[in-house]
């Protein structure tokens, strides 16, 4: 069975401080990993995916297969980063069922 674990329900950081949102997964195979974000009163939206290897809004995430982790990082937090962040996993190869973690609320303190 596939499982995504986000150990922190809430992460509070000061503006300008580095951010790391933790995500660990269990999956017997080669997964696709994603980060989704939900800003206040907005819809859930894709932030980034590991296969794209891109930086979105200053966020990056590296897939570490040895540690089965996909932590989300940003060197300098901004107030507009405050949101709910969900790590998610899917089987690679075009299969569409996505398993989400329980989410971490990021609060950036001005």
């Amino acid at each position, binding site marked *: 069975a596939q499982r*995504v674990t986000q150990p922190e329900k809430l992460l509070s950081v000061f503006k300008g401080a580095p951010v790391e949102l933790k995500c660990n997964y269990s999956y017997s195979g080669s997964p696709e990993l994603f980060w989704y974000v939900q800003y206040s009163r907005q819809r*859930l*939206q894709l932030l980034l995916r590991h296969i794209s290897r891109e930086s979105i809004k200053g966020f990056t995430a590296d897939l570490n297969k040895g540690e089965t982790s996909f932590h989300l990082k940003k060197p300098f937090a901004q107030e507009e980063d405050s949101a709910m962040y969900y790590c998610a996993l*899917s089987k690679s190869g075009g299969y*569409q*069922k*996505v398993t*989400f973690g329980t989410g971490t609320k990021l609060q950036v303190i001005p």
Partner: protein
Amino acid sequence: GAGVSQTPSNKVTEKGKYVELRCDPISGHTALYWYRQSLGQGPEFLIYFQGTGAADDSGLPNDRFFAVRPEGSVSTLKIQRTERGDSAVYLCASSLRLAGNIDEQFFGPGTRLTVL
């Protein structure tokens, strides 16, 4: 263009009643998904449609839940004999579904279902 829309935005019903939740995907998106999000949890996969057919309904919790997409566009999630435990936000998403790729799912605003 318009994003994914869901109606109603809120639905309050009594235990044992039947409810229907509607999802209008982005025009041209062939794939449609339903998720359920309980308080304090992440979205939980229910069912995925590719066109008119349910490609994966393994997330439906029991036979009280059923979903259709008869013309490959609008979808309806149907819940029979509702229970208090069905209370949640029901999310719909759609995607373009390019062959062989995981493509971006665009989410609707959700329907908040409350079963009294």
